[in-house]
C-alpha cells in the first residue's frame, strides 16, 4: 500500500534556531495522527509545513505521490485542509458563508450547484444545518471549532491538519470533537494530523502518536508504544503512572513521593 504522506528528512529553522530536525514519517490514509510533545517541540511547525504555511528548510514532503514544494497554492489547497488554533476575529458572516469559503480553491467565477451541495452536506454532517444562517460571532467555542472543521472539509482535502483543536473546550466537547475527527478520518479515508497537549485524549482517539522533543521525533507508533513511563519522563521531565484498561491507557502524573504509593495500588 502506498502511503498517502511521506515526510522525508524534513528540517525547519526559524532564523538560525532549528525548529524541526530530520523528521521522517510515512503514513497511510485513514489514520488519525496525534502530535504530542512539550511547548516548542515542533508540533505546530510540522503542521505548518504540511499545510504549506512555511517551507521546510530541507527535506521533502510527498502527498499522494506529489512533491509539496512543486504544487501551486490552489493545488495544495485542494489537498490539505487546515484548522488553526485561534480564530482571528473576522467581520461577521453566516455559518454557511464561512463554510463556503472552503470551496474557494475550487471556484472560478461563482459557486456551482455542486459547491453549494457540498457545503449543505457538510453542514448536516457537522450538525450545523439548522443554524446555517447564524452569524459566526454568536457561536460558542465548540460550535466555532465545528464551523472551522466544516470549512476545511469543504475543501474536500485528503489531509486535514488541526492545530490544538481541543484547547478552550470543556471535557465533553473535547471528547465529542475528537470522536468526530476520528470518524471523519475513517469515513472519508483522509489522513488527519492533530497537535494535542492532552496525552490521555491523544492515546484514546489517535491511531498513531508522534512524540516530538526539541524538533526531533523521539518516538512514534501506537499510543501504547509511545506513551511509556520512560518516554514521558525523558520528553516532559515528569513522572507518570500508566494504567491500562483493555486497549485504553491512562496517564496520571505523580510526584516522586507518590510513585511508591501508586505502585502499591
Amino acid at each position, binding site marked *: 500500500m502506498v502511503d498517502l504522506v511521506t515526510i522525508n528528512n524534513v528540517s525547519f529553522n526559524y532564523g538560525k534556531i532549528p525548529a524541526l530536525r530530520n523528521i521522517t514519517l510515512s503514513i497511510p490514509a485513514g489514520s488519525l495522527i496525534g502530535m504530542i510533545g512539550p511547548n516548542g517541540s515542533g508540533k505546530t511547525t510540522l503542521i505548518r509545513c504540511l499545510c504549506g504555511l512555511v517551507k521546510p528548510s530541507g527535506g521533502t514532503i510527498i502527498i499522494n505521490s506529489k512533491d509539496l514544494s512543486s504544487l501551486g497554492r490552489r493545488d495544495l489547497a485542494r489537498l490539505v485542509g487546515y484548522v488553526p488554533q485561534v480564530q482571528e*476575529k473576522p467581520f461577521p458572516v453566516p455559518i454557511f458563508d464561512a463554510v463556503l469559503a472552503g470551496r474557494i480553491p475550487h471556484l472560478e467565477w461563482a459557486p456551482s450547484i455542486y459547491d453549494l451541495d457540498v*457545503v449543505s452536506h457538510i453542514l448536516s454532517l457537522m450538525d450545523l444545518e439548522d443554524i446555517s444562517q447564524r452569524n459566526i460571532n454568536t457561536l460558542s467555542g465548540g460550535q466555532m471549532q465545528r464551523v472551522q472543521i466544516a470549512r476545511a472539509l469543504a475543501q474536500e482535502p485528503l489531509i486535514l491538519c488541526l492545530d490544538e483543536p481541543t484547547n478552550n473546550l470543556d471535557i465533553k466537547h473535547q471528547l465529542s470533537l475528537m470522536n468526530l475527527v476520528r470518524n471523519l478520518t475513517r469515513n472519508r479515508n483522509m489522513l488527519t494530523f492533530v497537535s494535542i497537549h492532552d496525552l490521555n485524549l491523544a492515546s484514546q482517539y489517535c491511531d498513531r502518536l508522534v512524540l516530538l522533543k526539541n524538533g526531533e521525533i523521539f518516538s512514534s507508533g501506537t499510543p501504547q508504544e509511545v506513551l511509556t513511563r520512560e518516554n514521558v519522563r525523558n520528553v516532559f521531565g515528569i513522572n507518570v503512572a500508566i494504567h491500562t484498561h483493555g486497549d485504553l491507557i491512562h496517564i496520571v502524573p505523580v510526584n516522586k513521593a507518590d510513585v511508591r504509593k501508586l505502585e502499591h495500588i
Partner: protein
Amino acid sequence: MTTLPSSVSVSPNPAAQHRRQNLHKNIILLIGGILVIVMAMYALTLGPYPMTIGDVIRALIGNGSDVYRAVIWNIRMTRILSAIFAGAALAVSGMVMQNVLRNPLASPSTLGVSRAASFGAAFGIVILGVGSTQSHSVSFDMPYLIALSAFIASIISTGVIILLARIRDASPETMILAGVAMSSLFTAGTTSLRYFAIDEVQLGSIIFWTFGDLGRTEWTTLTIIAVCTVVAIIYFFLNRWRYNAINSGEEVARTLGVDTSRTRIISLLVSSLLTALVVSFVGVIGFVGLVVPHIVRRIVGTDSRFLIPGCCIAGALLLLVSDTVARTMLSPVIMPVGILTSFIGAPLFIYLIIRGRKHW
C-alpha cells in the same frame, strides 16, 4: 479521494436558504441602484435656477431651451456625476482597506492618504506658488498642478507604507501603524506650510482646499475620476473571493490558496491611488470611506460579492444626498460637502459603535 455520495440533497435547506439570502441581497442592490438614479434626477432639478423634472428630462434628451441644457450639462451634471463616482470610489476603497487589513478602522484617512493629499496641495499652493497670484481671492489658478502635487504626496505616503510592509512584514498591524505615523508627519508638514504662507490668500487657499468640494470638477477631471473608479471597481470585484478568504483569517486564507501578502499590497495600492486621485481633484471628504462600508455590512453582509457593489451604491448615494443638502441648505451659499460629511459621519460612526459593536 473523498467524494460525496450521489444522494447529496438529503437536506437542501442550507443551500436553498443561502440562495434565498443572495436573492434578497441582489434585490436590495437593485433598489439602491434605482435610488441613486432617482436621487440624481431630483438633484438635477435643484439649484438657484429651478427646473421641473420635465425640464430636466427634456434637457437630457437634447430638447428644451439652451439655458436649461447649459445649466444641466455644464454645471449640475458634472457635480452630480462627481458625487456618484467620488462617493463610490471612497466607499469601496475604504471597504477594501478594511477587508485586506482586517481592521474596522482602516480608511483613506487612517492610512494617511487624505493627510498626505492635503499636505501636497498646501505644498503646491505655498512652495510652488500656484493658487494665490494676483487674484486676491481664494481660488485655484492652476488646479491641475495642485491636484498633481496632492496626488504625488499621497503616492509617497502610500509608497512608504508599502515599502515598510515589504521590509518588515505585510501584516495589517504594520500597515495601520505606518499609516498613523505618516498621517501625523504630513499633518506637521501642512501646519508648518500654513505658518510659512506669505499672505491670507495663500492661507485661505490651503484651508479652503481641505474642504472637499464637488464643484471643482469639470468634464475632463470627471472623466479621469470616472474611468479610474470603474477600472478599480472591476479589479476589486475580480478579487472578491480573495477578500472573502482573507476574512476567514490570515493563515486560513493562505491554506485556501490565496497569496495574502500580494493581495493585500496590490489592493491597498489600488485603493490608495484611487482615493488619492479623488481627493486630489475634489479635496478631503471625510468619513465616507470609513462609515459607508460599516453601514453596508449591516445591510448586505460581509460577502464581497455583494459588499463591493453595495459600497459603490451606498457611497454614491450618501455623497449625492450630502452634496445636494450642502448646496441647497444655505442657498445661495454653497457649503463644501466635506464639511457636511464630517458632521454626519462622526455621529453616525458613534451610533454604529454603540449599536453595532458586536459586529466586529
